[in-house]
């Protein structure tokens, strides 16, 4: 059961991350941090379907992560959910068309391996 919940956390987190990145790319760079401007931008972001999808995916991820924490230690649960990490990087390259140079691939591989060790 622990592994099934973990799979749900990973898939929903990945969808959440990618939709969030896609939505914010469409929204544009946030450069004004005054409260009234932030409020306006938050309202604009909510109307963005990709951000709506991200909020839904993150809500699923949150409740399944809570279920995972109720049956596993945080030092297992937190790194283990980073399986979404590898999937995220691949989708950033293929779906979001991000430029990922050698240093980023190497850094991502080191982090992924470190997270793997951390979950053992």
């Amino acid at each position, binding site marked *: *059961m622990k592994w099934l919940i973990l799979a749900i956390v990973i898939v929903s987190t990945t969808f959440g*991350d*990618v939709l*969030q*990145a*896609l*939505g*914010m*790319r*469409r929204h544009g*760079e*946030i*450069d*004004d941090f*005054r409260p009234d401007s932030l409020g306006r931008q*938050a309202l604009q*972001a909510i109307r963005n379907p990709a*951000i709506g999808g991200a909020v839904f995916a993150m809500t699923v991820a*949150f*409740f399944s992560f*809570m*279920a995972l*924490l*109720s*049956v596993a*230690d*945080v*030092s297992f*649960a*937190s*790194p283990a959910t980073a399986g979404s*990490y590898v999937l*995220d*990087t691949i989708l*950033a*390259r293929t*779906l*979001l*068309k*991000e*430029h*990922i*140079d050698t*240093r*980023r691939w*190497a*850094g*991502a*591989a*080191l*982090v*992924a*391996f*470190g*997270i*793997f*060790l*951390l*979950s*053992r």
Partner: protein
Amino acid sequence: MPPSAPTKPERALSLTAKTRLFTLIVIVSNVIGNLALSHGLRNTGSLVGGPVLGYITVLFNPWVAVGVVFLIVWFLSHMTLLSWADLSYVLPVTAIGYALIALGGRVFLHESVSLVRWGGIAFIVCGVSLVGGTDPRATPEKKQL
């Protein structure tokens, strides 16, 4: 001559400064949120297979509530950071949070950290340093998808 309204460059933070600031907020809120949530869920028993109401009831546990507040801060700051930085930059750099959560689990929740886990923390730190040295916005002006 009357003072002019602040122009965009005057009120805008530099890319490096705001990337550092929001990366810090993302990491700190994620670490505190996860630790508080885990602490709160420790004594509630398994939620798996229980009634759906159990998920709602547990939100009234003070530690879980604190965790939820910090995870909302995490979500909003993560979203802000992604408005200018690549996903392939944000994810590895904020992964240092995993190492901090393991350390926090050791210090505050008395969970064990084996030699292998210490090795994992070292790999994460190396990876974060490597990616942290790249341009947060390496993708040429964001193509519309």
